[in-house]
């Protein structure tokens, strides 16, 4: 009886002093899908500053980056606040020689490669910490890859809500239908993080997700 009362007391006190949970919204996907461009777009839209640097060279983002307390507002007046987590692109291979083609010196390329491998491991580790995830895919390339299937499957297994974003719809080769066909269980929002096309639609979809 006493132990029961103690447990009840702990529960009540725990509830009183529990901090409000910070919602973590992750940006995941393969390298060069436009995760950081989208992160910058979201940050510029709502807090007026960028999050990270972007580049055509893969693995530009090699560390987890977090922008805290971003509040977005819907047209109907709803508000949501989250911590935005930009993650390094997940890949199954990294070859430092690829970076040499972009003019890096061998030492720099090797260092970038080393940082990129660590970045991929960190992205995978952080999967468990996410409350919701936007998967950012380049709509001009084949989405049916094992990396994409693995990322989505792992989020699904953890019951983490997912929004699929088909980025780079400004490109001629963009094909949203291909992404819809590959992952029919998810709503796909076609956007261009670069020029802002359909970004409002993505925000509306976020309100349903979070």
């Amino acid at each position, binding site marked *: 009886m006493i132990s029961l009362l103690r447990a009840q007391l702990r529960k009540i006190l725990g509830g009183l002093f529990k901090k409000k949970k910070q919602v973590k919204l992750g940006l995941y996907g393969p390298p060069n899908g436009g995760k950081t461009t989208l992160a910058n777009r979201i940050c510029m839209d709502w807090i007026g500053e960028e999050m990270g640097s972007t580049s055509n060279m893969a693995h530009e983002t090699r560390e987890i980056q977090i922008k805290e307390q971003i509040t977005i507002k819907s047209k109907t007046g709803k508000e949501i606040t989250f911590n935005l987590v930009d993650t390094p692109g*997940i*890949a*199954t*291979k*990294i*070859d*430092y020689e690829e970076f040499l083609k972009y003019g890096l010196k061998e030492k720099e390329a090797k260092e970038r*490669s080393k940082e990129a*491998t*660590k970045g*991929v*491991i960190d992205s*995978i*580790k952080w*999967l468990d910490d996410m409350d919701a995830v936007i998967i950012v895919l380049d709509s001009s390339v*084949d989405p*049916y*890859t*094992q*990396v994409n*299937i*693995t*990322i989505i*499957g*792992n989020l*699904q*297994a953890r019951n983490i809500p997912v929004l699929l974003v088909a980025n780079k719809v400004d490109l001629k080769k963009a094909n949203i239908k291909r992404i819809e066909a590959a992952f*029919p269980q998810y709503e796909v929002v076609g956007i261009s993080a670069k020029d802002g096309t359909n970004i409002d639609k993505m925000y509306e979809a976020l309100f349903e997700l979070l």
Partner: protein
Amino acid sequence: MSKLMIQYVMRHEMEGLNSEQKIHKILDIVKEDKLVLMEGKLKQAEEAELIAFTMQSISKKFKGIEIAVIDPSQTTDSSFLTRLKSKVATSVLGITSGLTVVGPASIVREIKQDPQKIQLFTLNIGRGK
């Protein structure tokens, strides 16, 4: 002329191994520049771990892997009963259907896949494709 070695890993070879042992078994074969053709598939969490272990192993010689899974239970034309049987077999008996292909990135340039077939593009073999 270059050659591509394929090592077939039967289901019973993986039975009784924990996740880390399975991943090491696959990576050890791939690091010998062989293509793994594995009966069944890894669990989703194991696939993520395979990527993480691959990243830990990247070196001047080992550039990583290419991986694809053919999963009959995921095909759009498979019946509800087929998908249900597959789910029961996976969750109750631990049996996973399908076929997993893992190759070294230094040899396999790309694997294009859909739920029913894969196309494997190689480097350094014949004319490079």
